[in-house]
């Protein structure tokens, strides 16, 4: 199938392994260990048991009657916000931590933007007794104080990153620097479908449970497949996770919603697929926000988890092949989406997921009354309540 990773670690022309030589043997080792684990029923048995009993899977598929009425089509919510730690990130963090333990690596490195991946990684490291070091931009630490505290409560070391824009991009660069220094004893748990091969396919495969469950749940609850699957895209792990099971269903639209920040023409956004050009960052060729000289352009989004200038190579491929459709909504629209799902359904989504909510809300009349729309609620909004209330106070 066209979207499967090619043998050389690429999706079409995207992906690859653009890393310092020091990491090449570490990536070879990781890839071999990953393939051995995926072929080992004992690995799946332990992972599935923990996903069920520790994470709380399967996550529910929830109808949304009042939101559906507004949209004019039945919207179904895949509730990744109900997972332990409140987001989809733990699916991947748990699986990679189990893999690291199999590889005999007792020290875990992670980067985090909104803090959800950092919290998920700190959580599974506590559970498995692994050392955990999380790199986080200083600006994101300010925006997501609560998550910093949660990570520290679970014994993780949170390292502030003061370089560049002090957000996810710089945290990722710093995590890679750590890994170049410690790769024989550390495993780097990347939180999204980015980075050098095999990370994009590994993270996708560990997140694909979202789409596998949702597809079966749609058939059972709605009696048919969705017309459209909609998810927010920063690096793109929740989107790739829910899209993957539907890629072969030609009648199902795959729609990724990027962060348009202050607007696509403002220069302050994170819409890599909508406005970027192919370039190499953090080990992969992908759509990238960059200037004419190949310097990476700082991203902006109200949502720390979408605030990244690149995007997964498989999304880059889905865009170019036409199989995926990528749209964007602004910070302001996302804030409306954040409030909207709370008021209509009693579900406060993460600001990241609120981008997908806002886009669907803006598309009234796009779908016939019998065309279901599947929305990935990738995380819960508790982490964002303080930031949003501060913004509301500033506005009054």
């Amino acid at each position: 199938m066209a979207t499967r990773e090619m043998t050389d670690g690429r999706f079409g022309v995207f992906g690859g392994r653009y890393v310092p030589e020091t990491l090449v043997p570490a990536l070879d080792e990781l890839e071999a260990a990953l393939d051995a684990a995926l072929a080992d029923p004992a690995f799946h048995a332990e992972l599935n048991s923990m996903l069920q009993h520790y994470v709380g899977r399967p996550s529910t598929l929830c109808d949304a009657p009042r939101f559906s009425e507004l949209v004019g089509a039945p919207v179904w919510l895949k509730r990744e916000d109900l997972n332990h730690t409140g987001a989809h990130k733990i699916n991947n963090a748990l699986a990679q931590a189990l893999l690291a333990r199999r590889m005999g690596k007792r020290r875990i490195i992670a980067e985090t933007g909104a803090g959800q991946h950092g919290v998920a990684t700190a959580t599974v490291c506590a559970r498995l007794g692994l050392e955990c070091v999380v790199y986080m931009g200083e600006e994101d630490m300010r925006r997501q104080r609560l998550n910093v505290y949660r990570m520290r409560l679970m014994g993780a070391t949170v390292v502030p990153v003061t370089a560049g824009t002090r957000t996810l991009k710089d945290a990722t660069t710093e995590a890679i620097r750590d890994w170049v220094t410690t790769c024989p004893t550390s495993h780097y748990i990347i939180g999204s479908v980015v980075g050098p091969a095999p990370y994009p396919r590994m993270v996708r495969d560990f997140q694909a449970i979202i789409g596998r469950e949702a597809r079966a749940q749609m058939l059972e609850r709605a009696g048919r497949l969705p017309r459209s699957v909609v998810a927010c895209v920063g690096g793109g792990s929740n989107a790739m996770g829910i899209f993957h099971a539907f890629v072969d269903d030609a009648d199902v639209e795959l729609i990724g919603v990027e962060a348009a920040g202050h607007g696509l023409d403002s220069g302050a956004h994170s819409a890599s697929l909508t406005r970027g050009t192919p370039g190499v960052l953090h080990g992969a060729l992908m759509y990238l926000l960059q200037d004419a000289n190949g310097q990476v352009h700082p991203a902006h989004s109200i949502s720390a988890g979408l605030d990244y200038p690149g995007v997964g190579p498989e999304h880059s491929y889905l865009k170019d092949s036409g199989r995926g459709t990528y749209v964007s909504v602004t910070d302001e629209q996302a804030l409306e989406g954040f409030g909207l799902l709370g008021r209509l359904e009693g579900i406060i989504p993460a600001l990241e997921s609120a981008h997908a909510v806002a886009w669907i809300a803006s598309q009234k009349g796009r779908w016939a009354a019998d065309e279901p729309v599947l929305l990935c609620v990738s995380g819960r909004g508790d982490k964002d309540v303080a930031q949003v209330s501060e913004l509301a106070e500033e506005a009054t």
Partner: protein
Amino acid sequence: MLTARCEALRAQGRRALVCYATAGHPDPDRSVALWQGLESAGADVLEVGVPFSDPMADGPVIQASSQAALEHGVTLDTTLGLVARAKLGIPVVLFSYLNPILAAGSDVLRRAADAGVHGLLVTDLPVGSDPEREAWLGGGPLDFVRLVAPTTPRARMAEIARHGRGFVYLISRLGVTGVSDTLPSDLPQTIAQLRGVCSLPICVGFGISRPEHARAVGAHADGIVVGSAIVRAAGRSVDEAVALTRSLRSALDAPAA
């Protein structure tokens, strides 16, 4: 010229002193003065770093120099302009991340050669990672220098050596660029292992900052690469960087005790 220079040095039994400086640091004018000073202090090869916004293989010193250069508006083409202005007699190797090279267009290698660049080193393009682009970079007018890391298995060392031109750059230790107090104790064995599969001159970099390091590594390798220590000194003054280079040169040339 790079290959010839390295082999001539080897034939004379002289160790190569490869000095790294970030283009446009501390500022574009002083950058040119610095390079000329490094040449007069005895550098055999100059590595010119192309500033990049996200230097994932670099430690704090080179990161800061790269950031300062970007703030002065230095691009790959500005870098080439500075190289042309400096009119150096020693070979110049561009040291870059891949993305600025990709953005510079398909004739970038020709433009670099015209500016007086002889070699190219790309931090994030390991051997075998992208055969098409590697063939492009290696098939042009520049000597495409490849890197070996302490984690590189022996069979891969041989493969890298086959693809390399000019010299092979051996990374002395795990981690990013930056000064160290001590060198890894197994460095002589790593050099010997690489020597067994590699006919090119071997230059060792990362963490070499002091005359005693230069002397110790020079006893085993064909040359040394000094980066962060020079950049750090250049941040204080060009003279200080030149004086450091002079002391490294004497240490490297001193007869073995």
